[in-house]
């Protein structure tokens, strides 16, 4: 279907539109999970710190 990679990237003259669309789509679909993972890691870290603080308190009270 495509005679050369150059032809593929040119998309019959519509390169700007096609690749902007697919590009932004890929960007969103990659960035969103990354942000969710960061949020998850943040809450896990917070819980770890809280647990450490509890343990510290317990050890020092006894």
């Amino acid at each position, binding site marked *: *279907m495509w005679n050369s990679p150059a032809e593929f990237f040119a998309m019959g003259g519509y390169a700007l539109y096609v690749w902007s*669309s697919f590009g932004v789509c890929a960007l969103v679909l990659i960035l*969103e*999970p990354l942000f969710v993972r960061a949020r998850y890691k943040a809450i896990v870290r917070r819980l770890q710190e809280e647990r450490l603080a509890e343990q510290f308190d317990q050890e020092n009270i006894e």
Partner: protein
Amino acid sequence: MNEVNHLSKTRWFNWLKLSSPSTFYPVAGKLIPIFWILTAIFGIAGLWVSFFVAPVDAVQGQGYRIIFIHVPASWMSMFLYLVMAAWAGLGLVFNTRLSAMMAQALAPVGAWMAFLSLWTGAFWGKPMWGAWWVWDARLTSELILLFLYLGFIALQASIDNPRRADKAGAILALVGVVNVPIIYFSVKWWNTLHQGASVSVTKAPAMAQTMLWGMLLMALCFWMYSIAVGLMRVRAIILEREAHADWVRQLSEVKI
């Protein structure tokens, strides 16, 4: 875990067992990789069909290929709104926290789908009809759908009490669901009245079989993606909201 082994395609049956955050959390964790793999499979297949199988269009040239993300994104944005409203409604009726958390987890995904639909719609419209934005019925309704998503997210963000946020969001989502068909119908009416763009941006070229397949595969890809990200986000939400529960403290991730 027994729950995982007994999972079937329609998980209504198992859902009742999973309705507490503590049982759902590990199950979700196990499901996430499966959905990422499915996303990749459908995505690769879909992109292959989009770029290497579907033929060039007589009228729109290669530019029409944007349809392979525009239409799936539109479908997903509308589908996810229904699912989100359904979860929120369940949470309201049965007073279950997890259902509300699922709605909260899905809202951003749906909003991004609506945004992608609008973005790709603009980039499709510009070369085909000369304008970045045409006020056709589908695009305008999609814009309002984005506003509905953002309103849901904003409302929940501004209410401190989580249970009030859940219930208020549920009411808003349900009101939105009833209104979306009304809005769509009214925008279509408006469009014909004012004889706006006589061509619709979303009027697709005559569908070759392969084009339909491409759209379907990409739609499945987006669907699996939405489930994967939704499950990821709901796990974070569960931890955030159940932070003081015992089972959270006993988690292996938290015990260092």
